C-alpha cells in the first residue's frame, strides 16, 4: 500500500487517538474529534504501534513517521506512568519499610555510626581535658556566642514564640540541608559522606566537651537531650545512604557501574525519605521543646531517654512481623 491511501485509511483513528491523549494530558482537545472510551485505549495504542512499525518498514515519509512516533511516545508516557502514591503508603513506609531497610544495611549503619560517634567521643574527651583545643576549630567570637547561649542563670530570658518559629526554620533549612548534602556527596566514592560524618562528629564533640568543661552541664544537656536521638540518628543514616552510592561506584560487583549506581540510589533515596522525616521531627523538638527552659530538668532527661529508647526499638524491631 502506498503512503497516501495508508494515511487516508487511518486518519480518523489517529485523530480520535490524539483527542484521547489530549484528554489524558488535560489539554484542550480537538473539537472535531471524539475521544475513545478509556477501556479501548490500550488496544488503540497497540494498533498505533503496529501502524508505526509498518510505516517504518515501508519507508513512508519523515513527517508521517514523526507524527506517529510522537503519538506513540505520548501514549507510552500515559500507559507506563507510575501509579500515584496514596497518603497511607507513606505511613506504611515509615512504620514498616524504612526500619527494615535500615536493618538490611546494618553493617553500613554500624560503620557510619563509628565514623560519627568515635570522632565525637574522642574530640569530646580531648576538649574536656584541654578546653583551649576548641580554638583550633572555632573562632573566639563563635566560642563566646555559644557560651552565652548556654550560660546558666538566663532562665528568666525565655524565648518568644516568634523566635521559636525562626529557629525552627533555621533547623529545617540547615540540618536537613546537611543531611541531603551528606547523601549526595556520597557519590564521590563515599569520600563526601565520610567527611561530613567525621566533621560533624568532631564539631559536636568539641562543643560538648568544651561546654562540659566550663560546667554548663545542665543548660547544655537539657537542651540537646530532647532531639538528640532523632538528629544524630538522622545524620548517621544520611551517611549510610551516601556510602551506598559511593560503594556502588567504587565496587559495582556484577553490574555495570551506572546500573549499580541506579540501584543504590533507588535504595538510598528511600532511606533519605526516612532521614528527612527524622530531621523534621528533631527540628520541631529542638525549636519548640528543647529551647523551653521552663520545663524541669528531670522531665527533659526523661523525654530524651525515652527518645533514644524509641529510636532503638523502632529501628531494631518495627516492621519485623508485618507481612
Amino acid at each position, binding site marked *: 500500500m502506498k*503512503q497516501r491511501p495508508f494515511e487516508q485509511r487511518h486518519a480518523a483513528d489517529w485523530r480520535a487517538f490524539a483527542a484521547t491523549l489530549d484528554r489524558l494530558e488535560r489539554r484542550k482537545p480537538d473539537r472535531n474529534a471524539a475521544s475513545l472510551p478509556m477501556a479501548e485505549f490500550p488496544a488503540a495504542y497497540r494498533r498505533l504501534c503496529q501502524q508505526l512499525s509498518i510505516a517504518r518498514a515501508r519507508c*513512508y*515519509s519523515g513527517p508521517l513517521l514523526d507524527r506517529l512516533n510522537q503519538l506513540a511516545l505520548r501514549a*507510552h508516557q500515559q500507559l507506563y506512568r507510575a501509579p500515584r502514591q496514596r497518603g497511607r503508603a507513606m505511613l506504611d513506609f515509615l512504620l514498616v519499610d524504612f526500619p527494615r531497610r535500615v536493618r538490611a544495611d546494618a553493617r553500613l549503619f554500624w560503620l557510619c555510626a563509628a565514623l560519627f560517634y568515635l570522632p565525637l567521643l574522642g574530640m569530646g574527651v580531648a576538649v574536656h581535658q584541654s578546653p583551649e583545643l576548641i580554638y583550633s576549630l572555632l573562632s573566639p567570637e563563635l566560642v563566646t556566642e555559644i557560651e552565652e547561649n548556654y550560660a546558666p542563670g538566663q532562665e528568666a530570658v525565655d524565648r518568644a514564640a516568634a523566635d521559636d518559629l525562626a529557629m525552627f526554620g533555621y533547623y529545617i533549612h540547615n540540618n536537613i*540541608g546537611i543531611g541531603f548534602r551528606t547523601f549526595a*556527596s556520597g557519590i564521590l566514592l563515599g569520600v563526601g559522606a565520610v567527611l561530613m560524618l567525621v566533621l560533624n562528629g568532631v564539631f559536636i564533640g568539641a562543643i560538648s566537651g568544651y561546654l562540659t568543661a566550663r560546667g554548663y552541664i545542665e543548660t547544655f544537656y537539657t537542651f540537646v537531650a530532647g532531639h538528640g536521638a532523632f538528629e544524630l540518628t538522622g545524620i548517621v543514616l544520611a551517611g549510610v545512604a551516601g556510602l551506598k552510592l559511593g560503594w556502588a561506584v567504587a565496587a559495582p560487583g556484577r553490574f555495570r557501574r551506572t546500573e549499580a549506581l541506579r540501584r543504590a540510589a*533507588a535504595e538510598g533515596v528511600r532511606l533519605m*525519605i526516612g532521614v528527612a522525616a527524622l530531621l523534621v521531627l528533631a527540628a520541631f523538638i529542638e525549636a519548640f521543646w528543647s529551647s523551653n527552659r521552663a520545663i524541669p530538668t528531670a522531665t527533659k532527661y526523661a523525654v530524651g531517654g525515652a527518645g533514644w529508647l524509641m529510636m532503638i526499638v523502632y529501628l531494631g524491631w518495627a516492621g519485623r512481623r508485618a507481612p
Partner: protein
Amino acid sequence: MPGNPTRRSILTMSNPALLDTIRYVETPEGITLKLRVAGPMARALAWGMDSLIRYGALWGLSMGLVLLGWAGLGVWLITLFLIEWFYPVVFEIYADGATPGKKALGLQVVLANGAPVDWPAALIRNLLRAVDFLPAFYGFGVAALLISRDFQRLGDLAAGTLVIYRDPPVKTLALPPGPALPPPLPLSAAEQQWLIDFAERGSALNPERQEELAALLADCTSGLRGVAAVERLRAHARWLVGEHS
C-alpha cells in the same frame, strides 16, 4: 559507457553511522521510540530561567514576610529550604516533567525508558544536584554531561533519567497538487523516501537550492534542468505516495 541501468543507486551517498543525539528506546510493544536528548546549553538556559523565577519569588516573599519579624524569618527559611530542594521535584512530577524554565525551552525530564519520571527518580536527580553543582557552577555536572553518552549529569545517571526535547506538533506537509508520473527506474525503499522527503520539504528550501538538489538526480529527471527537473521529481513523489489514482 552505459552501465547496467536496472539496478544502480541514484545517489552515490555513503551512509555512515550518523553522529546524532537521538536515543532509541524499545517499548514492550516491540516498537522503538525516538527521543531527542537535550545538550548542556539548552539545560543551562532552562536552569537560568528557573533560578530567576525561584530567587525572584523568594525576594518577593521576603518583602512581605519582613513585616512579620522573627516569625516571618522562620517561614522564609522553610520556604527557602523547600524551593532550594523541591522546586524541580514538584514540577517534574506534576507538570509533565518540566519546570517552567524547561517548559519554556521545550525540555522534559523522562525515565530512560521514555516513561514519565516517578517520585524516587525526581528526588534522586534533584538531591544529587548538590554534588553536580560542585566544585562551582555545576563543574561535576557539566563534566558528567560531556562524558556520558546521553548528556546525563551525575543526578541523571543515578536516577536513570534523561532530559529530552518535547517535540512540537508535526506540521503535515502537503505535496503541491499536480500530475503524477512513475519513476523511470526502480528505486529502493530508502531512495523512495528521499524523493518524497525532497518533494514534501520543497517549500522549506529556496528555488535555487531545490534545483541544485534536483540536478543531482539526473538519472531520474531524464535530462530536464532547472525548474522542470524539480517539477518532474515532484511528479514522481506524487506517484510514489499514491496520489496518481
